């Protein structure tokens, strides 16, 4: 049994299916990416997997438990940092906990540790509007991880960042997922980002998964790998798959 199983998942807003009979499996500790053009249904698939949207057919299971609505097992990172401007950074990170119970001093310590892990140690008293875009994204990731979710779902969290910041965040995200042994499904439209992050890349088009690539690049990955021929070959393969020209 796989860790996350998406089985025959369908979703439609009207007549046209947005997510069309998708099967996908993620094993524990794996990092998967979902690439595709905008409008291909990748974000919708992610929301179905998160339990935010009910599948019209098929099922989502995490360790055998069917996901029908948002669950504490799943962490979600949105397209924008989506922080609450009126709360300091630490309270933003603690939000997933404070909505369900009183915050203990140990929770605060854990949030501070997490903040240090995403490279923002000591900034817990700041407010979101005092942070840069990259820092806000880091806080959003920390918030996604505070509940120790079994799986982290991410919806183009770095799309709005500049290229340099994005690369830093990719490295830190990989390190973080390796430390926490978090299973992850990451949606992006950036092929290079997908190849750099993932163990497996699913290429989506018009609601279907067109192709799946195994990325056998060694871990831990470092920036150098982006310039290797293997990396370029994988990017090209993904690109061809997106254009429907799979070899």
């Amino acid at each position, binding site marked *: 049994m796989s860790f996350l199983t998406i089985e025959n998942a369908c979703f439609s807003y009207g007549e046209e299916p947005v997510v069309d009979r998708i099967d996908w499996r993620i094993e524990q500790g794996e990092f998967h990416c979902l690439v595709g053009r905008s409008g291909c249904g990748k974000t919708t698939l992610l929301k179905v997997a998160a339990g935010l949207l009910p599948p019209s057919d098929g099922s989502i299971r995490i360790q055998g438990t069917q996901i029908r609505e948002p669950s504490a097992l799943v962490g979600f990172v*949105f397209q924008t940092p989506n922080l609450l401007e*009126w709360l300091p950074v630490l309270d933003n990170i603690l939000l997933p906990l404070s*909505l369900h119970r009183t915050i203990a001093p140990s929770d605060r310590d854990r949030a501070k540790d997490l903040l240090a892990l995403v490279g923002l140690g000591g900034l817990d008293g700041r407010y979101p509007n005092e942070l840069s875009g990259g820092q806000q994204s880091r806080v959003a990731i920390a918030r996604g991880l505070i509940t120790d979710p079994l799986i982290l779902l991410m919806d183009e969290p770095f799309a709005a960042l500049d290229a340099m910041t994005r690369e830093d965040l990719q490295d830190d995200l990989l390190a973080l997922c390796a430390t926490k042994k978090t299973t992850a499904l990451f949606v992006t439209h950036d092929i290079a980002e997908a190849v750099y992050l993932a163990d497996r890349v699913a290429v989506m088009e018009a609601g279907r998964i067109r192709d799946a690539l195994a990325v056998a690049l060694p871990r831990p990955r470092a920036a150098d790998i982006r310039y290797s021929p293997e990396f370029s070959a994988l990017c090209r393969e993904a690109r061809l798959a997106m254009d429907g020209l799979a070899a």
Partner: protein
Amino acid sequence: MKRRAGSWLLLITLLAAWEVFCRVSGVSTLVIPAPSAVAETLWDGLTVGFLWPHIWITTLEMVLGLALGCVIGFVCGIVLGETDTLRELLWPYILASQVVPKLALGPLFIVWFGFGMTSTVVITALICFFPLLENTLTGIHHIEPQKRELFRMLRATRMQTLLRLKIPSGLPVIMAGVRVAVVLALVGAVVGEFIGGKSGLGASIIAAQGMMDSTLMFALFFVITALGMIFYQAAILAERWLLRHHIKGNQP
């Protein structure tokens, strides 16, 4: 600071021009009193003290009316914002009541509540009610979809979503409503007194009119303006403080 200096300079110039006009043209003080005469009356009123009880009454009416109207408007805004059926049912009436000139109800309130403070407070509250109702409704309705989704993802209850997302997120719009209400509250209190007040600044204007004392009317006019500016500034300071962490560069 330079811009402020310019504004002050303009004020002094206008006052000087007014003073010169009054002295040179020999216009009757009944029509336009000289600013020096107004200042003298104002000074007398403040030092001898006959103005203070009126200032106090009007301030009290304004504060009570404002508080009452804002609280009721806010609560009704929340209730209507949270219950779609009620909102759809009442919306045409709310729109209609917006255009009713609330001050025109003054005489009716005097029948109901008698002359004096109660009528004025009720009129003021009624005037302050609508901006708060409308802005609260708008404020808690225009929440970024991603933030709603975040709260759904975190399995927040409806009450939690209201208290921890909708109200704080709508606060800038709600506070803009408060600012409008503050300005309207002064109008409500003064005009309420015109209609049914026994004391207060508005009632004093009517009394001064009865005595053909234009100088006193002008003096009272300045007191009312000052009162309004103090309240408006207080509202802006409160707004800045409350919204200090909301998006920057968004302040009036």
